[in-house]
C-alpha cells in the first residue's frame, strides 16, 4: 500500500527527487571512474613487468680506466660467454642465463632497407625475456655451433621491411651478409624507457660474433651483456649477491678490487614504478572517497531538508488516519527508490565516463566490481538513513505538533 503513496510523492516533487538523485549519481560515478583509472594504471605497469620478463637482471661489463680517464659502463670487455654458462650451471637459483652480443646495422631486403638493433643470442635469450615466436622456428643446435646464417626478426623490422608480406624464408642482408629469416617474434611493445623493443634482428651468437661483429677488438667469446632470469619464488637480492660473488670469483678479483661488471635488477625499477602507480591509485581512491563523502553530505542535506519541510504533510497524513509505520514505510520506500534509481544511473554514468576516459585519453582503465558495490552501498546507506531518520522523528510527534510545524 505504501509503494504507490511513495511513488506518488516522488512524482509530485520531481525537482527535489532529481536533486537527491544527482548527489547519489555524481558520488557513485566519480568513485567508479577514478578507481577504474587508478587500477588501470596499475594493471599497465604490471603488464610492463610481464613484458620485460619477470625476475630479470642484466649483467654488463664494467668500465676501463685508461691513464686516469674512466670510461662508462660497457667500455671494458670483461664478460665472456662462459660467464653465462657458469652462472646457469653453478647457481640453482638461476633459471636461465643468456649471453648476448649487441650492435646495430643496416638490414636490407630487396630494394628496402632499415637500421635496426642486431642481437647475437642463444635460445636462452628468448626464455629469459619470456619472448615467444608467432611464426617460424627457433635456432637449431647446428646453426648455433657452426654460425648458421639464419635470423629471427622483431615485429617492427618485419613491418618496415616486408610490410604485409610473410618474412619467413626470405633472404635479408645484415651488414651485407645474407641471412634466411626463420622466425618472427611476438610484439613486445615499448620498454619502460620508451624504446621500441621490437626493432631488432636476432642472430645466433656465434654467427653474430664471427660474421657481423668480428672486426671489433676484444677477448675471445666476449659478450656485451648477459640476461639472467632467477627462478620464481627466489629472493632477487640474494640471487643478485650470488651472481656477483660467482662473477668476482671467475674474474679473480681481489678483496679490494672493485667489480669489473655491473649488475642491474630491472624488476626493482619496475617495482618502484609499480609502487608509484599504486600511490596514484590510492590518491585517486582518496579523491573518489572525498567526492563520495561530498555526495553523501549532499544526499543527507536534501533528505533532511525535504523531510523536515514535509513535517506538515506528515502531520496531515497522521490527522487523516496514517499510522506512524505508514509514514515510516512511505519515507523508507521513497529513500530506497531514490537511492536505487540514483545508484543505477550513477553506475551507467560511471561506466560511460570510464569508457570516455579510455577512448579520449587512451588510458588503460579497469572497472572494478568492488568499487561499484562500495559506491552504491555507501550512497544507499546514507540516502536511506537520512531519509528515514527525520521521518521517524516526525512520525513520533503528536499529529498536531507535526501539523503546526514551521
Amino acid at each position, binding site marked *: *500500500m505504501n509503494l504507490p503513496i511513495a511513488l506518488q510523492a516522488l512524482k509530485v516533487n520531481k525537482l527535489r527527487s532529481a536533486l537527491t538523485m544527482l548527489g547519489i549519481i555524481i558520488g557513485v560515478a566519480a568513485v567508479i571512474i577514478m578507481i577504474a583509472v587508478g587500477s588501470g594504471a596499475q594493471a599497465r605497469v604490471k603488464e610492463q613487468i610481464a613484458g620485460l620478463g619477470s625476475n630479470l637482471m642484466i649483467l654488463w661489463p664494467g668500465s676501463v680506466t685508461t691513464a686516469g680517464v674512466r670510461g662508462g659502463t660497457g667500455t671494458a670487455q670483461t664478460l665472456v660467454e662462459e660467464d653465462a654458462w657458469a652462472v646457469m650451471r653453478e647457481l640453482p637459483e638461476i633459471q636461465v642465463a643468456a649471453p648476448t652480443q649487441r650492435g646495430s646495422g643496416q638490414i636490407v631486403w630487396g630494394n628496402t632497407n632499415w637500421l635496426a638493433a642486431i642481437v647475437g643470442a642463444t635460445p636462452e635469450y628468448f626464455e629469459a625475456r619470456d619472448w615467444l615466436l608467432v611464426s617460424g622456428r627457433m635456432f637449431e643446435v647446428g646453426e648455433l655451433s657452426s654460425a648458421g646464417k639464419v635470423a629471427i626478426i622483431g615485429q617492427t623490422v618485419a613491418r618496415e621491411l616486408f610490410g604485409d608480406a610473410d618474412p619467413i624464408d626470405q633472404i635479408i642482408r645484415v651488414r651485407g651478409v645474407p641471412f634466411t629469416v626463420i622466425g618472427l617474434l611476438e610484439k613486445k611493445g615499448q620498454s619502460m624507457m620508451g624504446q621500441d623493443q621490437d626493432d631488432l634482428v636476432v642472430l645466433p651468437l656465434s654467427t653474430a660474433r664471427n660474421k657481423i661483429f668480428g672486426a671489433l677488438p676484444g677477448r675471445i667469446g666476449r659478450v656485451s651483456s648477459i640476461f639472467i632470469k632467477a627462478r620464481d619464488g627466489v629472493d632477487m637480492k640474494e640471487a643478485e649477491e650470488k651472481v656477483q660473488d660467482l662473477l668476482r670469483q671467475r674474474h679473480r678479483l681481489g678483496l679490494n678490487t672493485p667489480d669489473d661488471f655491473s649488475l642491474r635488477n630491472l624488476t626493482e625499477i619496475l617495482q618502484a614504478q609499480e609502487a608509484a602507480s599504486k600511490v596514484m591509485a590510492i590518491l585517486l581512491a582518496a579523491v573518489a572517497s572525498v567526492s563520495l563523502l561530498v555526495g553523501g553530505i549532499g544526499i543527507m542535506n536534501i533528505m533532511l531538508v525535504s523531510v523536515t519541510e514535509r513535517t506538515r504533510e506528515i502531520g496531515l497524513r497522521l490527522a487523516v*488516519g496514517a499510522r506512524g509505520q*505508514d509514514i515510516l514505510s512511505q519515507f523508507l520506500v521513497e529513500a530506497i527508490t531514490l537511492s536505487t534509481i540514483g545508484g543505477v544511473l550513477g553506475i551507467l554514468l560511471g561506466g560511460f565516463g570510464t569508457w570516455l576516459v579510455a577512448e579520449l585519453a587512451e588510458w588503460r582503465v579497469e572497472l572494478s566490481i568492488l568499487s561499484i558495490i562500495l559506491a552504491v552501498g555507501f550512497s544507499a546507506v546514507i540516502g536511506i538513513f537520512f531519509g528515514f531518520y527525520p521521518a521517524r522523528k516526525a512520525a513520533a510527534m*503528536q499529529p498536531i505538533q507535526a501539523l503546526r510545524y514551521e
Partner: protein
Amino acid sequence: MALIQTHQLVKTYGVGEQIVHALDGVSIDIDEGEFVAIVGASGSGKSTFMNMIGCLDKPSSGTYHLAGEDVESMDDDALANLRNRRIGFVFQQFNLLPRTSAIENVALPLLYAREGDLAGLTKAQRDEHAKFRLEQVGLGERLLNTPAQLSGGQQQRVAIARALVNDPNLILADEPTGALDSKTSAEVMHLLTELNQQGMTVVVVTHEPDVAAYANRTITFKDGKVISDVAKENARNITTDPATGVA
C-alpha cells in the same frame, strides 16, 4: 448517547518554571447532529480543546469518549484508526498536498482506511468516492486541478470533500474561514450548514461572530474554561446556497 463526552479535560504545558493551563477542567457533551461553534479569544483554549476532541493531541488528565469509545485507553495506532473512521478535519490553511490533483487530495484518507467498508478499496473505487464527494461540494468540474489552480474557497471545499470522504461521524473545522474573504467564507459556511442539515455533526472553532452565527450552539472559552454554552433555536435560516444554488 452523546457523540462527544469530555469530563474534566485538562491540558497543561510547561513553559520554563511556569505551568500554563491551556485547558482547565472542561466537561462538555456534544450530541450527534449538532452544529457547534467554539469561540473565544486567542489563547482561550478553544483550539487546544479541538485538538483534544480530534485526537490530534493527548490531554494531561480527564476522560474523553468519542462515539462511546474510550479514547484514553487507545495507543497511537488505534487513535489513527479512530481519526480515520470517525473524524473529518478542515484546517484554516487547507493543508492540501501541493502539486497533487483535487481528486487525489480527497482520496488521501481512503489510502489509510484499515477498518470498515472503506478499507482496501482499489484505486478506481477510491477515485469514485473522491469524485462523489467533490461533486457534493460543487467541484465536479475541477477533479484534476491542483491546489495552485484553485481559489482559496475552492481549496477549502476540496478540504471539506476530503473530510467527508471517509464517511465520518464528525467534522471538525479549525478556523475554516480564517484564510478566506467574506464572500467565500459565506460559501464555505453554507456548505457546512448544509452538511449539518443532512445530519452531520459539525464543530467549528472560530473567533468571528459571523461564523459562529451559523451554529446552533455556541460554547465560549476563556482561560481554558467554558464560560458560556448557549443553544440557539433556528440559528440562521438558509434559503439558498450562494455557491451551488441549491436550497
